[in-house]
């Protein structure tokens, strides 16, 4: 057969594939969900299996305020992305900053809770099974909030420098997906730790 190149077929009229940012982020969320599932299962499995005190009801307060802050930050991040899509960078910057503040309030609240538990109640990760599972699960979530906060802060830094425009709306949307995931996980962790577990 003589040398020839492949005939160029006409491309199908509409050839659209999913966006890779979204697919990648959704895959990451699936993987993270599996990690959290294992920690939640361990938490539920070990409920009431303590060999020594304290029990959850004796030391845990329900963190209503900071939880509302975290869930509210899902709304603010969404408003920020929508503002950016419209091309209004100023409202974007403000909503984005609000998200960061709400997330920081949440982390501060967790820090206060842990400080109280450790230094006032003397309840640590070594105390009993409840301590091990509580600090691990809540800590794993707090770690994810921190990672998200680093991402949010980077975008904020660029926004301050005036480098964020409507062309970045899609990327902030992808980061927003991660943030929604972190908030959704808190719904589960909150229910498991402070409602069922207590």
């Amino acid at each position, binding site marked *: 057969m003589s040398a020839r190149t492949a005939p160029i077929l006409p491309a199908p009229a509409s050839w659209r594939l999913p966006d890779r940012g979204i697919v990648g982020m959704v895959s990451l969320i699936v993987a*993270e969900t599996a990690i959290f599932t294992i920690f939640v299962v*361990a938490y539920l499995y070990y409920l009431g299996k303590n*060999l020594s005190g304290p029990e959850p009801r004796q030391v845990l307060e329900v963190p209503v305020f900071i939880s509302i802050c975290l869930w509210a930050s899902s709304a603010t991040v969404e408003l920020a992305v929508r503002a950016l899509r419209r091309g209004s960078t100023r409202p974007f910057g403000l909503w984005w900053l609000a998200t960061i503040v709400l997330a920081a309030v949440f982390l501060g609240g967790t820090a206060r809770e842990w400080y109280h538990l450790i230094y006032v109640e003397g309840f640590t990760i070594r105390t009993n099974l409840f301590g091990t599972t509580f600090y691990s699960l809540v800590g794993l979530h707090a770690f994810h909030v921190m990672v998200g906060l680093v991402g949010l802060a980077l975008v904020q830094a660029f926004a301050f420098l005036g480098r964020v425009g409507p062309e970045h709306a899609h990327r902030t949307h992808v980061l927003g997906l991660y943030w929604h995931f972190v908030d959704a996980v808190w719904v589960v962790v909150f229910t498991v730790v402070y409602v069922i577990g207590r």
Partner: protein
Amino acid sequence: MTSDSLTLGGAGAADARDGTFLETLHDWVVTVDHKRLGLLYIVYGIVFLAVGGLEATIMRVQLAAANLHVVSPQVFNRMMTMHGTTMVFLVGVPILFGFGNYLVPLMVGARDMAFPRLNALGFWLTAFGGFLLYFSFLGGDGLYGAGSAPDVGWFAYAPLTSTAFSKGHSTDYWTLAILLGGFGTIGTAINIITTVLCLRCPGMTLGKMPLAVWMFFTMSAMTLVVMTPLSAAQIMLCIDRYLGGHFFDTQAGGSAVIWQHFFWMFGHPEVYVLIIPGFAFASEIIPVFSRKAIFGYPAMVAATTGIGFLSMGVWAHHMFTVGMSSHANTFFALITMAVGIPTGIKIFNWLGTMWGGKIRFATPMMFCLGFLFQFLIAGLTGIMLAAVPFDWQLSDSYFVVAHFHYVLLGGLLMTIFAAMYYWFPKATGKMLSQTLGRWHFWLFVIGFHLTFDTMHIPGILGMPRRIYTYEADRGWDVFNLICTVGVAFQALAIVLFLWNVVRSLLWGKDAGNDPWDAWTLEWAVSSPPPHYNFALLPVVRSRRPLWDFKHPEDPDWLYE
């Protein structure tokens, strides 16, 4: 079909720039090219295959006869642990993800993976995970000893891994190495999924992807949900060992059994994560060497995803002897046996592909034929072990060891060799020697059957796995000796293979673009492919785009 036939893109002229050794090294270290990363993965896996094989050889020599003391019991335990961990995490996973990396973008007609830098991160995380594991030989005891490797078995059952029973740092190296490698693997899995979903060339709908792409996609999707429980369990183990937690501390009410659940929730699906790429190789190679399109493409896709789903519900068949409820036993036994159905469909379809075909007995096809026979037997002993009472008798015996080595060597390794012979010409531009390939095949098959057919028998006679040595009057001696003799044949086969690689790289005959007259897109570009893969993104209309190009008078898309 000769090398001057089809080119979808420029020749490899851009690749042919020679630099100094340092420049070349630098290029490879900083590369984000999926082909180079794929080759790095594969070479890394082959190096550790040799290391893990050496560890296995040490164990087999120790077990060759009763009451031997070739190595100490401590060394034996380390060899056992390192062999298992190495073969799963540093050989199987890297080689298969390496092939996925190399082939998926080429097969779907893309210029690279979706996230090239994540790809490089994934490789280097995996690589340093392996180095960390092997550094334990030096640093395992920390500051107060000569050092030692992990010795807790590759599944590291609690509470053996607690600080009370595993002093020093060897277990820490084990857990951190696996955590690190796991993150790398998850990153690469995300990458493959995104590449398959988002970067297919125009016209390649999901139903027109090569079967191998479907299988790499399934493997990656499974990896997302099975590698992560292992990472979670390793984090818990770290919390126990470093922070004084009680997850697996039975003294404080923790459970040793829950570690088994978490581990096998990873461990069993992992076997399918490993074997599904094996199926991928067979599904590409068997049609090409039978000169027929794959038989039952939709059934193959359905069977692959079916195995993916079913495999999530089989883990506790490793735990029948733990003492679960009869309901749990029944559930896991039934799901395990059900996996046999989609697997049977696959074997049927491969046979259907060969039926009436014009079979060419080239080296890749020979390894695939060996795979078909051996994998069938491996599956049958698997179904035997899924029967709970049978498992009660033979759990943790050499019968189980023989079973899973039948799967992983007789099944997986055979297809990996097939894939090496099949795609080596594409990756290097040189053919591997057919003569040496035949020696490799026959020596390996003979050695494999000597070792692993025989190994079933001492298992049935009651020889437990993981033992250091045994008494002479048990009737196990002769079988163990035959097992050890088989190792020599396998080792020789591997040496011949490595020699074949070196020899072919230096003096091999040129392969051209399409030495096998194949049908998937990677054979449309030069060998080795240019950095950008396709100068012009291809447009496809059927599952065998190259067939259509070569036979415009009788294209596949008329019939699909």
